[in-house]
Structures are given as C-alpha cells and as structure tokens.
C-alpha cells in the first residue's frame, strides 16, 4: 500500500464532457498490498467512469467482505458505498436498486465472497437480471486470512506453502452464462486496454452485467505452480477479440483492420464494436459462447473479453413492473391510502 499520495496534478489534465478531470473519480488511498491486481482494476474503474462522463454521485458502490470488497473505498469518493456482509452484497444491491432505479449500481466482490459464502445470493441475483455491474476480483485465494484456497482455485494449482488444491474450480463466468446472465465478460487485471471498454459496456447494459476479472494476489498466490499468478495468467490468456465501446450519440471513430467486425447495439443507444479473433464464436449466442469457453478450458486457456451479451433482456424492475419514478422518491400522498379507504376497509371487516 501507499501511504502518501501526491496532490500534484498536471494543470493540463484533460477534462471529460462534464468538465471533470480523471482525479475527480478517484477514491481514498488503497490499503491493499503493493502490486495487488485489485488496484489495477480500481484504476480501470476510475478511467472508465471518467470516459463515460458518469456523475459519481449517481453511482452506488456495493461490496461484501474481503480484499476485493475493500475496493469501493478506493474509487469514486463522491459516490456512496456500502461495505456490507460477507457474500451478501447481491441482496443489498437488490434492495438498493429497488429503492432507486435511477442510479448505476457497481458491485465489487471476490472469489471467496462470490463462489463460496455468497454463491446462493450470486446465482439468484443473476436469475433476477438485476440492473447492475457485478465485478469479481478473482485471485483464487483468501488474502485477508492469509492465503487459503478459494473455490475458484484450479485443481492442481499450487499454493505458496506448496500444497496442491485437490478440488475442481468453480468457473463463475460459465456459471453466470448457464444461469441466464445477460452480459458476461472475463478479463485480467493486467489488461487495462481490454478492461476499460468492457466496464463501459457493462455499465451501459440494462440488466445484470457480470465481469470475472483474474486479479493475482501478489502476496499469497503469485508463486510458480499457481494458475492465478501474473506469469501464468499472462501466458494462458486467450483474448476473444478487441472491442471498443461507443457511447450513445458518439461517432464511431476507431478504425479496425480488416477482419471479423461486428457491432452490437445496446439499449441506451450505445454500440459495442467487436473485433473478433475467435472463429465460430458469436457473443450473442449462448451456445457458441459455452462451446468456446469449454474449448479454451480444454486447452488450458483463459478466454477473455466480452463473452456473452443479450440486449433483449428485461431487468428486474421491468419484470415486476415498478414505477418509473424511483420508489424512494414517492411521497406520502401517493403511498398512503388515507383515512377514507381505511373506513371502507373497517366496514368490510364487520
């Protein structure tokens, strides 16, 4: 961790359309280990929000417990955050979102928080297609309790102490797709180029956007033999393609080499321009995505990029038909039936 942050900012730092420089999107000083993958992800969140011209106070940051879940303090200091209960962030996010559908909900979790103690809530928030970004900072181990294997550690992966994990890993991205998640991306904390557009697309998605980001633990799981170490992940990442996120009303300016380019229109009018490197894979076809992931798994590769997207889905509010006005903004005259209705009700109970 760093103890001091320089207050110097270059006077010519570029401003986004709202007039904010990128430092406006930063959080408090990280207390994570120096070199922690999570800090790179936090930096990508800051950058993505700045690029997307998001009003920080229109974002709510939610987390469970663990190293990853400390992160919301380290980005967007002008956003409210809730560092809640181990494995229970999805429920808190669900309630918060039901109360006010107008905010962007950014959930941060870890592999212990999601794949073990929080598995129950994770699968159900996927089912409900809650409109949120759910980002797992996945390092395959429990950092705060000194490096025990988590449920995403690969079978055969070696811990710092030399013990070999015996149990099958839970593949969160595959699971999310199986459960009907409507946006699934996978990435690596060291690949900012990929992470930023992926996060921007996730935040623009109307529904549940899941991002599984491999984020090596420099202290407890960066040793030879670990399948979540920087070296291992760098060697085994298989990128599905490059993508660019084009917000609504922006011109598409990125140029691509000739190849397999496809545009995906999002609900809010934004576009994802995808340059695919994988053949026989269509990110709007769940079946082909699952096949591609299984093939990669067989080869010992980690498939990254936007894996699956379904823009025709309905989020929870739409499914349960809640009012367009956020529920927390409805006043008593709308909410309370009043004395006359009660008198009628009394009469019906005699």
């Amino acid at each position, binding site marked *: 961790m760093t103890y001091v942050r320089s207050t110097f900012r270059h006077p010519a730092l570029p401003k986004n359309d709202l007039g904010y420089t990128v430092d406006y999107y930063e959080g408090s000083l990280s207390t994570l280990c120096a070199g922690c993958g999570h800090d790179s992800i936090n930096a990508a969140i800051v950058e993505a929000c700045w690029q997307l011209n998001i009003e920080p106070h229109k974002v709510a940051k939610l987390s469970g417990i663990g190293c990853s879940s400390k992160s919301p303090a380290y980005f967007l200091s002008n956003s409210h955050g809730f560092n809640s209960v181990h494995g*229970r962030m999805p429920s808190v996010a669900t309630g918060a979102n039901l109360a006010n559908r107008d905010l962007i909900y950014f959930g941060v979790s870890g592999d212990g928080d999601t794949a073990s103690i929080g598995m129950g809530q994770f699968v159900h928030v996927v089912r409900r297609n809650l409109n949120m970004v759910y980002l797992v900072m996945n390092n395959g181990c429990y950092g705060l309790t000194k490096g025990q294997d988590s449920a995403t550690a690969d079978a055969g992966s070696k811990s710092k102490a030399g013990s070999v994990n015996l149990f099958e890993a839970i593949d969160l991205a595959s699971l999310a797709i199986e459960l009907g998640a409507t946006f699934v991306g996978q990435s690596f904390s060291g690949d900012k180029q990929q992470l930023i557009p992926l996060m921007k697309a996730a935040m623009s998605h109307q529904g549940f956007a899941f991002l599984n980001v491999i984020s090596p633990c420099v202290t407890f799981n960066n040793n030879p033999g670990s399948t979540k170490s920087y070296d291992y992940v760098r060697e085994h990442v298989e990128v599905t393609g490059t993508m660019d996120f084009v917000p609504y009303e922006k011109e598409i300016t990125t140029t691509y080499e000739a190849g397999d380019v496809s545009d995906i229109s999002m609900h809010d009018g934004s576009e994802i321009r995808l340059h695919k490197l994988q053949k026989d894979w269509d990110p709007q076809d769940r079946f082909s995505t699952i096949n591609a992931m299984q093939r990669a798994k067989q080869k010992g590769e980690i498939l990254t990029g936007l894996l699956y997207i379904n823009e025709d889905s309905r989020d929870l509010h739409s499914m349960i038909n809640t009012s367009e006005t956020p529920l927390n903004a409805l006043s008593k005259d709308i909410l309370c039936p009043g004395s006359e209705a009660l008198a009628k009700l009394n009469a019906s109970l005699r």
Partner: protein
Amino acid sequence: MQETKINDFVVRFANVNGTGSASANALFTKAVFRMGVPVTPKNIFPSNIQGLPTWYEVRVSEKGYLGRREGVDLMIAVNPQSMKKDYADVHAGGYFLYDSSKPLPPGYDRTDITHIGIPLMALCNAEFTDARQRQLFKNIIYIGALSALLDIEFAVLEGQLAEQFKGKEKLIEPNIKALNIGVDYCKENFDCPLDIRVERRDLLGDKILFGGNSACGLGAVYAGATVAAWYPITPSTSVVDAFAKYAAKYRVDADTGKNNYAIVQAEDELAAIGMVMGACWNGARSFTATSGPGVSLMNEFLGLGYFAEVPTVLIDVQRTGPSTGMPTRTQQSDILLAAYASHGDTKHPLLFPASPKECFEMTVDAFDLTERLQTPVIIMTDLDLGMNDHISEPLTWDDSRVYDRGKVLTSEQLDKIYHVVSATNGNGNNAEAQPDQEAEHAGDFLEQFNSKWGRYLDIDDDGIPYRTIAGTNPTRGAFVTRGSSRDEYGVYTEDGAAYQRNVDRLAKKWETAATLVPEPEIRWSADTPVGSKSAVEEADKSVGTPLGVIYFGTSSYAAEEALEFLAADGIHLDAMRARGFPFGESFRDFVDSHERIFVIEQNRDAQFRSLMMIELGVDASKLISVLNYDGMPITADNIYRQIKGSITK
C-alpha cells in the same frame, strides 16, 4: 343436564386438513360476531397440506373475554382420525356432535355428555353428486345444524353467503340448500336450541374482526413501505400476502398501471433482510416478515444494521422452536433472540402488539422509529395474533400524520453546511463554488457541523447522527457505510478510542430509544384509569398493593381475564402491559413500586423476565414467572391457577 349458557361456551371443530372446513368454520365465527356477541376463533393446525387432523376452536363470551378458555362445550367431531381424543375432550355436561351416517364404534358411551348424531355424509350424498361438492357441503350442513342447535339467525348466515359469493351467485343457492338440510334435520330430531346458545346482543359497537398478519401488512402500506423482501415461513407468510393484496389495491398507478411498490421473494432470509437493508440504506421504507428460524438467519445483518445504523423493519411472527419444532403452534419465545440478535454489543428496539389494531399501528410506528433511530426495529407478534381473527377496535388513520423520515440531509442542507452556493446542478464546477457570505442560518443546527458533515457526529446529543442518501448531492455527503471501524466522519480507522466513542454514542442512542418506543399500559387495581401519566403519579403516592403483574402481546387477553378471577377472590394486582423495549421510565417505576411481580409469558425460560433482570438489574427473587409453553395460546384458568397457587402457598 346443565344450566343454560347464553353466549358463554366453547365450540371445537375437529376437521381433516384440506377439506374446505376453514371457510365453513369462519362462517360460524362471523355469524356470532354479526349477532353482536364477542367471539374468539383459534386455528389449531398441523404442519401439513392435506390429511392430518386440524381443529378450529371458537369461544363465545358475553363478558368479552377474548383469550382461549379450557374445556369444550360442543365438539363437532367430523374427523375419524382424532375422534377418540375429541370425544374425551368434551367437558362434562357438554355435547358431542358426530356424523351418524355410520354408527359410533364401541366405547363411545359417556353418560355425562349429550350425543348428537347427524348423518352428515348420508344427507349430503343424497343431495349432491359431485365428489368435491360432497366434501365441501358436508361442512356447510353442520353449520346449518349449528344454526338450529345454537340459535344462530339464519338470515345472518344467508347475508354472509351473499357477500362471499358476490359475482358467483350460482354458488349461493346450493350453499343455502346445504344450510337448510342441517337446520331441518336438527329441528326434526332434536330439541332446538340447546341449553348453550347464542342470543343477539349489541356488545361490539364498531369493532372489526381482523387478523394480526393482515393488519401488519396493511400497516406497511399505510406507512409508505415500498420494498418488501421475504422468504416463506409459517406463520409469517400471510404478512407479505396481505401487503401484496393491499398494495395491489391501493398502490397501482391508475394512469401508468405501474406498481408503486416492489415485492421480492428472496432465496432465503439472509437475502430478504439484506434487500431490506439495501433499500432502507437507499432511502426507501422497506420491511421483511419472518419467524424464529428466519430471525436466526438474519442475525448477521441485524448486527451490521445496528453498527452501521441502517433502518430496517422486521416483523417476527413468533412460533415454537425450529423448523421441525411445532411450526404451526404459537409461542412468545424469540424475546432474547430478537433483543440481542447478533455479534458484539448489540440490542434492538422491540414492539409488542396485542391486537390487530396495535399490529397496524405499531407497524406504522416501526417505520418512523427505525428511520428516527437509524437502527433495526423488530415487531414481536406471534402465530396466535397473526394467523387468527381477533375482535379489535377499528383501525384509524390521521390524514395529517407526517412520516418521520428521521435525520436525513437534503442536498440544500449539505450545501449549507459547506457554505456552498447551489452545487446541485452537477456541472463539474462545484469545486469552484463560492462560500455563501450571506448565510442566514445563524443558530441553525447545520452550523453545529462546523462546515464539515460527519456521518457519525452526534451534534444533537441524542446519539443519533445525520445520514445522507446516495444520489443526493454531487460533491457532498458521500461516504462508505461499514460496520464500526470508522471515525465520526465515516473514515476508516481501527483506532480503539474511536471505536469506543462510537459504541458509547450508540448506547446513548439506546437511551433515546427508550423515550420513543410505545409506553406500557398500566392499570392500577384501585380503579384508576388505564395507562395515563397522572395515574402513574397518583398511584406512586398511594400504592394500593405490593403485588404487580406484567404481560405483553397475546398473553394480555388471558391475563386480564385472570385478573378478574383473582379480584373475585379478593386478590388485587396492579398490572402493566409492556408494549416496547428498551424499557422506559414508567416501566421501571412500575417495577420499583412493587414488592413482587408476576411475569406472564409464553415460553419455557422466562425470557422476558431475564430481559428485565439484565436491563433493569431487578432482583430475581422479586420476579415470579407465570409460564405456558405447550404451543397453545395461554388461558386465563392457567394464569389464575399459577398466581393463586403462588400467593396462597
């Protein structure tokens, strides 16, 4: 055989679960109610969907006693499975009504009761051909029989059927036919009415017949709750069912057809309360309802809610023990679980309603309290109150009532604290906003912040800080909510002194809570009016009796009846009905001004008594337990026996 008992008897219906008996039996209760006579029904049902024995017990009481009474005067025995026990349960001098389509087996030969055989099945089969109809109308036939036997006005029953089948008028005629079959058979074969019977009175005024769970659900609608999250568990399920029913009636926007509420059936109770906390944290009014096992699962969140100071309304409809305990039987056995739920130094305000009207009012109050105190508030009702209909004063609502949303800062107030001129446009220029030189808020509480808001600053000296809701102000008021490792400004710290300051403030908040929860209702044995402050003061000067009794929730009906029995024996006790926790000043005064106090409660371990000992340091020898924990609602006879036995020992 026995003296005539007018409007004073107990009827028990012994049915098979899932045979449609519930609606027929409710018809009977409502008919007595409509004849102006106090009536109390109790469902005694198994954890089963179909097939096991279920009972419905109705007490009719001219004197207005609404608790359960021991002994059965008339058994409607239509379940062969339980008939032997049902037969034995009839009071000497009582009646045993059975289906005489087949003769009674040997052994049913009591001479101290009257046997009333009605060939229910044979009569029904002669008239109806459809199998389901035969099952349902058998029930209606015995209601018809009771109409003749107990002198229940036929027109009242007819009127109820007309209301019940409004829109399905075709069903009225066969139901009335079934009623008449019962009436005719009894008039031909027995001396009607019996010497237990109903006589029309006007004892109920504008009272209503309503269930506690329905009243809680309705209260949540009136309180402006917009988010309900829950997991099904008996006996609390019907709270959310009622919320859903009334919300669908009152909360759908007429123009857009959209719902001004959201209900989520969660994956478990952990998620249910997590959703509630998320919604409350984000400025909505939200609640969940559960029972003991659910409260156990919610413990971790309740602790977070206490330390992180997040409002939450939890309705605990208490029942007996674990899931494979007796989930369909009543108890008041979550007192300590709820009061001290969770890890660390936690305690939670509890409300104890004793009637549907109080279920309604306390649910509304709970939302004000939880937002005022920024801590979870738990409503302690139970199966008896929740799942049975009770005679209750009508519900009232004051249209001028304003929801107390507690200390929530608006965007303007935040700007004012920082002396910022309108920074709410969010155009990114806020950092350059100029201080408001002409601030006109001298003496304003906002000044107390000294230009810097702190989430956990206690500027009012009541232990309650000011909170902000996400999305309020672009540059001010954001913070990260977490347990207790933070300072007054919400900044992360593990400093011991900061922690201690924080939990000491929470203790101060607890003292504030004691002044806000509902006051106990006190009745002095010397005819002073119930509850009033002046009554307390007056009585302090001239304490009439050294003996007191404390009760709460559904023990109240039976306790008050028992007090009358004792008074008839010349034993006078001052009484206090507890309505809230933490215990306030008048509660303590009552305890202090009596030498010995009976504490009536429906659990084995005298949990409420323990709570008094822990919180008030009351000497154990001063508090005498009066307990009932067999899963059935406590009776006056039981309380009378225990208190009388203890006094005359």
